[in-house]
């Protein structure tokens, strides 16, 4: 039975936004926490920690997000961990985000001139104080624009959750497309919804970047 594409279908696609936003938010916060740790490890003075963080980043940046999700989704049950799709997708996206945010923030930390760290060391500040009072405040300012830019990538990345059956914006469009047989409208509408989510963030990121370039 083919249904007409009406307001109901449009609304059912729209309702997928909720999961997309929640998923993006959790992955962003979780990825932010682990990403911060990765960035600190990557810029630490201990070589093994640096190497571990470098491998971690290389792995997640050098493999497709879809494979990462497959590994969590099909891999963890092998170890007896049966997760519902929500948890599996969240874990996958959080790990993914942590590597990318870690790399962005490493860039920010390393963009702070070395002389600053040396001066702080000469003043007798320990690692913790050097980081908290001297390096990180400047690094954070430098990293804000690319971090917002990555949020756009992450929102787009959540669409892959649809492939493993998680219902979010893309999956709800897929469902509407198959019940009404109007794929052009369904996917067009989904694209518009994604655009409405992502475009303001892209503009914000570009604006922040410009402002930063002017000042420094």
């Amino acid at each position, binding site marked *: 039975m083919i249904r007409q594409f009406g307001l109901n279908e449009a609304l059912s696609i729209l309702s997928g936004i909720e999961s997309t936003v929640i998923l993006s938010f959790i992955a962003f916060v979780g990825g932010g926490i682990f990403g911060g740790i990765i960035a600190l490890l990557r810029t630490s003075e201990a070589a093994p920690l640096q190497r571990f963080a470098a491998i971690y980043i290389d792995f997640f940046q050098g493999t497709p997000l879809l494979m990462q999700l497959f590994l969590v989704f099909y*891999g963890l049950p092998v170890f007896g961990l049966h997760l519902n799709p929500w948890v599996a997708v969240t874990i996958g996206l959080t790990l993914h985000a942590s590597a990318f945010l870690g790399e962005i923030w490493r860039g920010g930390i390393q963009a702070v001139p070395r002389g600053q760290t040396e001066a702080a060391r000469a003043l007798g500040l320990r690692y913790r104080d050097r980081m908290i009072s001297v390096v990180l405040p400047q690094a954070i300012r430098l990293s804000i624009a690319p971090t917002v830019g990555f949020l*756009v990538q992450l929102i787009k990345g959540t669409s892959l959750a649809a492939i493993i059956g998680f219902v979010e914006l893309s999956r709800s469009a*897929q469902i509407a497309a198959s019940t009404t047989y109007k*794929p052009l409208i369904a996917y067009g509408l989904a694209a518009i919804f994604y655009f409405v989510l992502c475009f303001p963030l892209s503009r914000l990121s570009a604006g922040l970047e410009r402002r930063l370039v002017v000042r420094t």
Partner: protein
Amino acid sequence: MTYRFDFGVLLPFWEQFLRGCGLTILLATCSIVIGLAIGIVTALAKGSLFRSVRLIATSYVELIRNTPFLVQVFFIYFGLPTLGLALKPWSAAILALSVNCGAFAAEVIRGGIDAIPKGQYEAGAALGLKPLQVFRYIVLKPALRIIFPALSGQFVLALLTTSIVSSISAEELTAVAQSLDTMTFRSFEIYIVATALYLAMSLMFATIFKLVNRACFSYLVK
């Protein structure tokens, strides 16, 4: 609950994995080449004197950059047939990937051209060079130097993005892995191997591009 890992089960399928890798590289190469052509045209269009041309180019770039690739693929593969344009999975995949790459390449190319100081163009013109000569002798090489690393990053990204076209059953590494999965039920081993192959491919290309970059663009600026 114990699960015995057995990668040996996958050994007889090495040819399929290799074929998947080859198809993935082919897919990425096709789409980056076409995408580059689209990107150059779009970058030029963004600098056009006509407002409408600039607007079209900007809308294309922003629309593609702010929507997920999965939705773009679905739109092309499932949506276009209702307009009478039915594409085979591979054609749809190449079209979607090229259109996607084009938007990102346009930004990269635009950035490279914009990074050349205006004074350089003016100096070239003052020397009596024609616009094309200015481009060839003054703009091209420094612009390429800026563009190349970003563009090689785009290639690696395209390589990873190809995995998504498995969702329209276009054949490449991920699709091969999925079909082996339904044959052997060795999901974890299969996806580990596929992931490792993607990692090997992206590291290989990243290294090649780094070497090319060092060989061609490492001259001193001053």
